[in-house]
């Protein structure tokens, strides 16, 4: 299958007062056309930074990002601007990502105006089409963001991302700021649009249930690294990395009386400014071995479409 996006050895460092913070530390991944790659992990593990680095909203420190085979990190500003027509983002907080001083029809039309397409594509008609596509009523054309509820605002955010007919969209926690009742609506909308327009998503979330619902494949991140990548089905039925297992055991089960063995991790997430040596999970891993503290385990592939970075797995494989 053709890879729409390929990321190789991506690094993003931030210089902080405490020292060098490796927000994204040597990440490689790919996303095939028409599929959704979910990225999960707890707060501060570098999910959002990855999403933003891929779009060059933050400049990656090192590594390669290939979009349809073309390296986008070497593009000049003007070329990058053109590239943005194909790569869009939906933001987490629909209350902050819409300019309070612009009406929603103008927000949706803005990308078209930037690329001088507004007149060419029949301006108002195109906006109406987009609003219809995301399920916004026509009477809301002249409203301002503060007059809408969270779900409708996020629909505006989706319409804005779709305005330029992109091929690839980064969904950066698109539903985590919304009420649970509305989350499902937006998720279904995103899936519906994906099928209709043949879009490719990178879906960033801390909510495993949400990721399970929308993703074909899932990458689990911890402290700036991907520890396990596999299909959405595999991750729930056959998790290999101890961190993935711990994460899964934390999902509440919506059934009375059913209990599950919780894997309780000890301590807090170590500071990314000063990550543990060897395996980054070694400080909290219940199965930690001596060599885990010394050397980083290699990325191995115990099954097709399943990669893990853990000695437990690589030792078993020999």
């Amino acid at each position, binding site marked *: 299958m053709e890879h729409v996006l390929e990321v190789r050895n991506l690094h993003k460092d931030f210089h902080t007062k405490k020292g060098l913070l490796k927000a994204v530390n040597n990440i490689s991944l790919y996303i095939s056309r028409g599929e959704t790659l979910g990225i999960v992990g707890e707060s501060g593990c570098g999910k959002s930074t990855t999403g933003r680095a891929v*779009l060059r*909203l933050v400049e990656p420190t090192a590594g390669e990002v290939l979009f349809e085979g073309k390296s986008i990190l070497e593009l000049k500003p003007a070329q990058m*601007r*053109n590239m*943005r*027509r194909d*790569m*869009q*983002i939906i*933001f*987490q*907080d629909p209350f*902050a*990502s*819409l*300019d*309070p*001083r*612009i*009406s929603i029809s*103008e927000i949706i039309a*803005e*990308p078209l105006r*930037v*690329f001088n397409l507004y007149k060419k594509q029949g301006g108002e008609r195109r906006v109406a089409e987009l609003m219809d596509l995301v399920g916004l009523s026509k009477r809301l054309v*002249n*409203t*301002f963001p*503060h007059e809408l509820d969270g779900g409708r605002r996020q629909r505006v*955010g989706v319409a*804005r*991302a779709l*305005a*330029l007919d992109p091929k690839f969209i980064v969904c950066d926690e698109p539903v985590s700021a919304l009420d649970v009742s509305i989350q499902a609506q937006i998720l279904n909308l995103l899936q519906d649009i994906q099928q209709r327009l043949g879009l490719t998503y990178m879906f960033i979330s801390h909510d495993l249930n949400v990721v399970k619902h929308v993703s074909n494949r899932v990458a689990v991140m911890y402290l700036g690294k991907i520890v396990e990548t596999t299909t959405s089905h595999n991750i729930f039925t056959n998790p290999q990395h101890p961190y993935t297992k711990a994460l899964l055991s934390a999902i509440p089960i919506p059934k009375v009386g059913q209990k599950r063995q919780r894997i309780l991790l000890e301590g807090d997430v170590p500071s990314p400014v000063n990550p543990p040596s060897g395996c980054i999970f070694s400080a909290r891993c219940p199965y930690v071995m001596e060599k885990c503290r010394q050397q980083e385990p290699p990325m191995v592939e115990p099954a097709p479409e399943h990669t893990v970075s853990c000695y437990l797995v690589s030792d078993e494989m020999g």
Partner: protein
Amino acid sequence: MQKVKQLIQYITSYIAQRRGPSRRPAGRRNNQSFFSVFLSSLKSDRLALIGVVLLVFFIFVGVFADSLAPHGPRDRHYHDEGGIKRLESPTWDHPFGTTDVGRDIFSQVILGTRTALIVGFLAAVLVTFVGTVVGIVSGYFGGMVDTVLMRIVDFFYAIPFIPFVIVLAAIMQPSLWNVILAVSMLSWRTVARIVRSQVLSISKRPYIKAAKVAGAGHLRIMFRYILPNVVPLVLLEMAFMVNWTIMAEASIAFLGFGDPRVTSWGQILHMNSVSGYSRVAWWWNVPPGVAIILLLVSIFFVARSLEAVVDPRLRKR
């Protein structure tokens, strides 16, 4: 050149967009708009209302000064017997009395109103324009650009006002324009700093990132996204700047560095002071003094109420 054209296009399209009443049907306006909040606050804020009424009065006097002033500012007035009307206290003919050379003070005060308003508004517009552009550029780009611009601002903060004006007046011809220039050169720094701090916060908001993803360039982001969000603050600063520039002009003219050909309140006080009659002729220095105070107070009341619009925490509950 291309950039300048683009810039002008953005600004006009922005204004057209804000104005265009046809775009928004009645009742669907953004009820958070700056002026509507200000107008509604006038109802409860007595002082602001007084300020607005006074200001309108001053503007009226300033605009129609030529028709309202009964005499020319330099005309000498004589008694029927032929003697000059020196230092006469107020009469019906000369409501504010006359100067030591027989000039009508009432006419001078009325004509001085126009000077004060012209200097105040022109300098304030100039100051806010320069300050806003510097502030937005500095806050938006950050890094080196920010450092360099802010050090320039620091440099201007270090220049004391009156000595600077004296030197400037010595080098250049004393004229109204040079006064405006001198006041502006030392006032944009404040606006630049305040706007910058606001832009620092705005330019980190997600909708600016969203604009960047949409492909918007720096100019478009600065003038379509950031500028509208600092406009209320800029208008408020402008109101304070009008006050400050009027006061500065009066000080400069009082010290005798103003334009001798243009009548202004500061100049009336200057003539009064050098004539040596300042302790005798109260009708000579009280009217321009009271006029300065009233104008400044009226603008201050308006600005104070604008401040409450910009910062909701100051609003009465």
